[in-house]
């Protein structure tokens, strides 16, 4: 497969609106083509930047709240399981300024592995409390008890909110 991808093709691929055989062909090509993988990454980054820019514009532009809710739902759908992604993202944003982005992602992966999940994104609901407990113990070693307690509290509160 040659690099005959248009912008529309990329957006269709990112929006998951391509046909299954077409998608398979693109993925096969991406597997072997660094240049296309980089393009895809760039498109994803642009997509993300547009989302955050839209969030910034919200305060200045009058958009119906239904439209905002719909756009947010669409963006969340792309992240996978809404509730889990939001919870993980919230914990990551708490940890990263303290321990650094790399340590935070490593700590979250390590905590997930300790509860026998291949990755934090694949956590089952029932494993969330033990995942948070393990993350708490890792953070306690790195950043001390009070900071780790913040992680524990936020983790538990997020679960309660998700359940509600």
């Amino acid at each position, binding site marked *: 497969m040659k690099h005959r991808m248009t912008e529309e093709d990329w957006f269709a691929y990112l929006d998951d609106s391509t046909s299954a055989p077409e998608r398979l062909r693109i993925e096969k090509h991406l597997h072997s083509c660094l240049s296309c993988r980089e393009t895809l990454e760039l498109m994803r980054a642009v997509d993300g930047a547009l989302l955050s820019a839209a969030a910034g514009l919200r305060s200045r532009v009058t958009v119906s709240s239904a439209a905002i809710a719909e756009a947010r739902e669409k963006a969340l759908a792309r992240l996978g399981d809404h509730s889990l992604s939001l919870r993980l993202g919230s914990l990551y944003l708490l940890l990263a300024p303290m321990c*650094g982005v790399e340590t*935070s992602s490593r700590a979250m992966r390590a905590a997930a592995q300790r509860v026998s999940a291949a990755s934090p994104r694949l956590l089952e609901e029932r494993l969330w409390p033990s995942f948070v407990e393990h993350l708490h113990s890792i953070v306690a070693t790195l950043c001390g008890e009070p900071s780790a307690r913040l992680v524990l509290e936020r983790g538990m509160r997020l679960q309660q909110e998700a359940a509600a």
Partner: protein
Amino acid sequence: MNRLTPRWLYCAMAASLAAVALPALLSQPRAAEWLSLAGKELAYGLATAFCLRIAAEYRRQPVLRSAWFLLASKAIVSMLRHALEMSSLEPLPHIHVYRQISITLALLFLLGGMVTMAHAFLRTGLGFRIQRVDLFAVALVFALVSVILTFHDHLSEARVPLLAPRTLQLFSQVVLAIAGAFSVILHRIILEMGGGKLAIAMRFLVAHIVGRVVLVVTGHILWPNSPLHPHWDLVSRLAFDATTWIFALAACYRASMFTAALRQAPPKPEEILALSLDKQWSRI
């Protein structure tokens, strides 16, 4: 203590260094010496308070609690060490022995703290790995210190008739080299952390040790009989004073970590959505 932010410490450091430089430039060495002592005592006093507060945060982690207790002990012994280094104490008998004992003890406490901290971080199982370039850096540190040990006639206590201060001074150079080697390991961990307040605190700790090693090595090259000595004296005094503040800053950054996290508001959904731009996040 909560109100003492790193910004305050930067201001105190600048004021302290200026207070030392001014009388030194106006040929008032006595005043410069006293002001330098006051600055160092203040810096180490603050560092002690911060270290003890951090140690209290590790109630269930005895390893890291010990690490911060060791660093607090280093700060306390350093306060004594700098007081003993006053020229007015020169006529006292065995002053060289007391000085070298305090220097060696302070370095041993610092080394203990570094080793314990590096061990605790490596034990978390987060995959921090030492690389080949780090081993080269460690070898370089040892090579530099071995040069000092070979030409130990240039050391400040080399002409003291007593054997104890001479031996202790040589021993303290070895301890400093080992601390330098561990600072390389800590530096690797810092690089792998990807930012954050903890990394800043550890970077200052590493800077404190590297600063000491550099000062010892350069002091050895520009030894007292060198023609550069008059200029070197003020520069080295200011640099040495700065390293004490750097140690205090390391403890201050680490102590302020929890306060900063506490002030952090819960993220908005938009912020979480923007995570798609974060490379580390996509690797989770």
